[in-house]
């Protein structure tokens, strides 16, 4: 029995933190909010050179061959630093879909290119209703000779504006259920594909992606025809856990920054951290963040082990982290008082990110209902 990070994971965490403190200061985070691309190609290349992009890919595809838990540790630090850019879209959403469902040729073509930092990718999953259930998929892909023709609109697609390729989740058969959904690797330069960047609270680049008779070759099918939903379902588990790791890292920054401030800020002649009203707020956040850390590491472990409980663990982690990050950031602003409400202080970056992450891959209410179903309540 040993349930905590090992020595190498602690080293990875420490080196990632040191690197990001130097290479990803808050000035960069802020600059990227207004930047058209939304990421720094320089930082992107450096992260790839460190092996981060291919960390959890097997060595035969240009990766490092580390575990998903290692990736979660890295994401925790990226969430702490609020690293802007398409890392999760490329490495987790697209990368793990290809790893899980791609044929040898697709894996050889895309995974080493992702690992080297050459290729940016994303997953085009959600549509106008914003849901992550199979019933929410309305974009169609119709066979035409050996090709498929894709029509419809995807919404809230992260980083599509800089992606070289998108993985589009489309219906290849009439219906609303899980059957008849397929995944396609779509070249972002394909004719009829239109990307419009939406303006977000956090500066994350979420896009509307319109497919207007976008023709893709049969070889772009990722996984089985009509059998794509199990791939998506599994991918959602992994992406959810990845998001949770990111959230937990951010929540820990909020906690530590607020504790530091409470020790320094003097009112009535004493640090505000001596007041119980402040101590208890921070104690509550500490309990929640400690819980988030435990459940995220556990959920990441279930992904590595392909444990039968991984879907339940992912929903548990997401419900908990959604509430925790939001609450931590809300209290973080409160403890900082007026300063916390300013644009100049960094707390609002986390406050906004918490609200954004709260709804990514399903909010807490959604996951609680999923848990109720899984427990057969």
């Amino acid at each position, binding site marked *: *029995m*040993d*349930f*905590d*990070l*090992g020595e190498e994971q602690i080293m990875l965490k420490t080196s990632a933190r040191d690197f990001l403190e130097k290479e990803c200061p808050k000035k960069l985070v802020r600059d990227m909010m207004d930047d058209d691309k939304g990421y720094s190609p320089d930082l992107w290349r450096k992260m790839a050179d460190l092996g981060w992009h291919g960390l959890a890919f097997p060595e035969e595809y240009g990766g490092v061959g580390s575990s998903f*838990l290692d990736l979660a540790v890295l994401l925790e630090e990226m969430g702490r630093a609020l690293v802007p850019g398409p890392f999760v879209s490329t490495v987790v959403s697209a990368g793990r879909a290809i790893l899980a469902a791609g044929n040898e040729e697709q894996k050889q073509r895309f995974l080493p290119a992702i690992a080297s930092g050459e290729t940016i990718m994303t997953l085009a999953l959600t549509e106008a209703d914003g849901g992550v259930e199979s019933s929410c998929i309305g974009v169609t892909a119709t066979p035409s000779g050996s090709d498929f023709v894709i029509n419809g609109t995807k919404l809230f697609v992260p980083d599509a504006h800089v992606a070289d390729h998108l993985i589009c989740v489309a219906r290849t058969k009439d219906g609303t259920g899980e059957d008849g959904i397929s995944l396609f690797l779509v070249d972002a330069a394909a004719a009829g594909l239109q990307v419009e960047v939406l303006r977000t609270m956090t500066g994350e680049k979420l896009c509307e992606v319109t497919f207007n008779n976008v023709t893709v070759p049969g070889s772009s099918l990722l996984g089985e025809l009509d059998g794509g939903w199990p791939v998506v379902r599994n991918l959602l588990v992994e992406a959810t856990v990845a998001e949770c790791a990111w959230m937990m890292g951010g929540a820990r920054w909020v906690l530590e920054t607020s*504790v530091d401030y*409470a*020790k320094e800020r003097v009112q009535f002649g*004493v*640090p505000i*951290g*001596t007041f*119980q009203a*402040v*101590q*208890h707020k*921070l*104690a*509550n956040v*500490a*309990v929640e963040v*400690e*819980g*988030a*850390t*435990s*459940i995220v*590491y*556990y959920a990441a*472990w279930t992904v590595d082990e392909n444990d039968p409980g991984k879907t339940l*663990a992912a929903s*548990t982690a997401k*419900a*908990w982290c959604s509430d925790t990050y939001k609450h931590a950031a809300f209290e973080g602003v409160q403890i900082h008082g007026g300063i916390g409400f300013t644009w100049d202080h960094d707390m609002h970056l986390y406050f906004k990110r918490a609200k954004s992450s709260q709804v990514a891959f399903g909010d807490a*209410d959604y*996951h*609680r*209902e999923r*848990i*109720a179903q899984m*427990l057969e*309540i």
Partner: protein
Amino acid sequence: MDFSYTPAEETFRDELRQWLSVHMKELPEWWGRRDMAGPEVDSDEYHDFSVWWHRKLYDAGFVGITWPREYGGRGGTIMEQVIFYEEIARHRAPGLANAHGIGWCGPAFLAHGTEEQKKRYIPKILSAEEIWCTFYSEPEAGSDMANVQTRAVEDGDSWVVNGQKVWNSGAHQADWAVLLVRTDPEARKHRGISYLFLDMKTPGITIRPLRNITGTAEFNETFFDNVRFPIDQVIGEKNMGWYVAAGALEYERSSAGTAIARENAVRDIIRLAKEMKRNEDPLVRQRLAQLYIETTVLKYMALRGLTHELREGRPGPQGAVSSVFSMEFNQRLQDLAMEIQGPYSRLTRGSKHAVDHGRWQYNFLRSRGNTIETGTSEIKRNIIAQRVLGLPRQ
């Protein structure tokens, strides 16, 4: 990260499971039955039952698993201890009696006692031949426990104790007790306290039962009137008793054995919701799922705490964090269990139509004490803020 058990640990688990499968058949008919009421928790019948079961576990070598063999323990590992609590909860078997003896009186002897004391007292704590209780709190020393006013003075080779203690669970059934007393009124508050112990048959002790919110009398108030006992009945050094007590409390807060019991409670409330046909209400579903989430988070927090203990040899800061969360979790669970029953929640033990013989009503009321006993939630939050987060003290 590794959740597996060693072959030796699996062997221990098998041995315990085998034992439980044989001996749980000997439990009284009411045990674990929802359609039958057992004896009241403060009754002698319940006490005798607890001790009877404890002794069976002791005779089989399952009490004091990590405690040294020379004092009657098993000399086993922390993991075996964890497995013991897991299997007891999984089988829904009764736990150990002598909670105070095993929880902190025994550990205080182990950590600070003389060799003679350890040999004399620990084996009988483990066997429950001698039941222990605790005299810490006083009317003016609740959360501010270091404010104890009960005086002990040395008179020849005796202590003479005068004062009043309160919230003394099980004092009416105990053979021995530990006692926090002021031995140096001139010293600073925390520096003038000693950790004594005494035979409950010593003359001058008056025990008065206090009925708690449930109507039962688990705890008491106790008066000490010139209570005289030998001077060597002190654990650790004179005037250093505060630190003996504080160490023992930490031990209690770090215990990681309750995760599966909480999972059982979540399973029970889900079953209740189905029986009361409330399981399709989306609000109830949300709250039941939240209880599942909380118990799962608590479980992995406890395992992280356990890992810290295994790696570092002492419990981590997760102790206070888990404790406050766990206590409040149980209150939320019991509160929801009452709401699920609607008007039936008003019916109590002994009433026609009472759900599960009123055990939810008892548990709900009993759980109200959870955020007060073993340190209030407010004190535990202070501990988290000051000792874990390093915020300044007032």
